[in-house]
């Protein structure tokens, strides 16, 4: 079974991902692309298991707001770890659109990007198979204080000072 980093713990993962055009299976936790999700929401069939949304980093988050109430998780797929758009998408999903479910980074996700991803609101990470999950977990504790507000991680040091 796949192991992922979720909420700071290394844990087993039950989720699968639906390829475009595939039918949603009757059972199991599954991440579904937007087109397939829209189709299923238009005519939902009874099934066992949870549904998540699978999008790429190029997604315009405003276009998925209407489906957020129907999913318990959103996976953002990184074709390249260098694509910075997912960081903004995550922050908007958390703060602007109030998404409280699992926000998962998948694809080309490396231990050295996990800290910033987490700060931006991702709470689950499918680390690329050839990389160390343990290194990724340790990376969450890289910094104990931050210079700006964000969605998670160390406190904004200046705000703490000002509040005290």
């Amino acid at each position: 079974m796949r192991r992922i980093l979720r909420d700071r713990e290394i844990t087993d993962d039950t989720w699968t991902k639906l390829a475009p055009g595939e039918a949603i299976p009757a059972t199991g936790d599954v991440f579904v692309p937007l087109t397939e999700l829209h189709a299923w929401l238009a005519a939902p069939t009874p099934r066992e298991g949870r549904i998540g949304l699978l999008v790429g980093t190029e997604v315009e988050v405003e276009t998925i707001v209407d489906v957020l109430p129907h999913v318990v998780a959103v996976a953002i797929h990184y074709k390249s770890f260098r694509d910075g758009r997912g960081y903004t998408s995550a922050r908007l999903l958390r703060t602007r659109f109030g998404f409280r479910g699992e926000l998962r980074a998948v694809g080309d996700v490396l231990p050295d990007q996990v800290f910033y991803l987490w700060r931006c609101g991702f709470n689950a990470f499918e680390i690329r198979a050839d990389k160390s999950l343990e290194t990724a977990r340790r990376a969450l504790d890289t910094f104990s204080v931050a210079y700006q507000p964000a969605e998670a991680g160390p406190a904004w040091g200046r705000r703490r000072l000002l509040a005290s």
Partner: protein
Amino acid sequence: MYKYDDIDERIVAERVTQFREQVARRLSGEISEDEFKPIRLQNGLYLQLHAYMLRVSIPYGLMSSDQLRMLASIARRYDRGYGHFSTRQNLQYNWIRLVDMPDILAQLASVEMHAIQTSGNCIRNVTADHLAGVARDEIEDPRPIAEIIRQWATFHPEFAFLPRKFKIALTGAPSNDRAAVRVHDIGIRIVERAPGQRGFEIWVGGGLGRTPIIGEVVRDFVPRRDLLSYLEAILRVYNRWGRRDNKFKARIKILVQALGIAEFRKQVDAEWELIKDGELVLDDAEVERVRAHFSPPAYETLPSCDAGVAGKRLSPNRDFARWVQTSVVAHKIPGYVAVLVSLKTPGAPPGDVTAEQMEAVAALADEVGFSQIVATHTQNLVLPDVPATKLELVWERLRAKGLAAPNVGTAADIIACPGLDYCTLANARSIPVAQRIALRFDDEALARYGDVSIKISGCINACGHHHVGNIGLLGIDKSGEEFYQLTLGGSPSDDVAIGKILGPAIASADIVDAIERVLETYVEFRTSDRESFLETYRRVGPTPFKESVYATHPA
């Protein structure tokens, strides 16, 4: 100057620990070079032609004498005994070994320095007017705000993988922009809308490189409380919509051009509206906390020195008089001046400085100043607080170390990129051309030509800022031969302009002659020696220059 508190210390120390561990994983092969590249870049480490180059961050150019001594010590111990001041007020070492990097960063951290975000597709070192805090013409010292922006930008989790690099510059001088804010991704001018009502005029989308573009005003007044949220809104729009398919079209200037400034402004405003009253509201107490670090040093009460300095410009000691003419700048405190220290020793690479020279400047800053030194974006240094009565002493001390060339602001004060001698991108050499130009003109000639800027880039990426040189040189490769395209009329200041190409590119062997012809044509056509090169060029246009350069020098 800004002094670290426990938060700053922890962040920099934790960065050193992080990078030490990352280097170990790179050396063990756990991280590939491709994966390591953005990591090392955001720690200031470039792979150049021969070795690693390390770029140390000098926020807004300001250093203490202890910091400068540390830079000298690192140059001796880990490099070849010298460093190179860059066009963004940073210091570069050209011969660094990867295995030494964690120790170098730890030593920098011991004097409150780092190399964070001096490279890579992130928000780079924030630059500011090199006369900030001492200039007579500024309405407010921009450095406290620059420091606040530095902190906000440091390890900003959302903006570490932007489409491309991102540079911010500030000035507090309303009519004499020495920070080139109009050719930055974001330029910030401190402005006063009404008495006591200060805020920021925000320029966006300026830049040089392959596509030189003069920035535009995206908002004419942002109140202080809203500065960080407004910057965050700009960065967010850029991060979402900036092009990622072509690195040469990825800077924010291309997005601003594609959308048009009105649409870009609309998008920024829409984003800003949603975040402006959020957590990023800039608290007065935080501004005051940072500003206290920049309170004026303990100046003595001295009589005005303006007449005295004017007298020194006419000193019978001609060498000293010339140096005073080019190197001494008026100061807002009576009796004090700012001294520009030339790092353009004729025959040496522009901006290069030996460990011994760094230590000498540090000692001088301790002796006659308040232990502060500023790096300029024109690759020189400033001693910001010198009592005018000490000018002879300062000149002697600098001259003894080869740092008193009377050429700041002249045709020998050349900005040059590393060029083909160091850089993998370059088409032609820059530094040797700069050296040949500087050696061509003696002090008499430099005095005759007056204020003129020459800037040289070894390729179209324009790191030598040739587009905004009064005289610009762009190196190109013509079937293996080095040629230089000549542009005239550029300026990075309030009268910002992109230089115009004069004519066909000129062979390396003829380029110094061509520049001399350009300068002699200026002397011939100027109305008086009070009309600068740029003023004359703008008045008479390119024709006489073209005729003189190409009449005897067909390309």
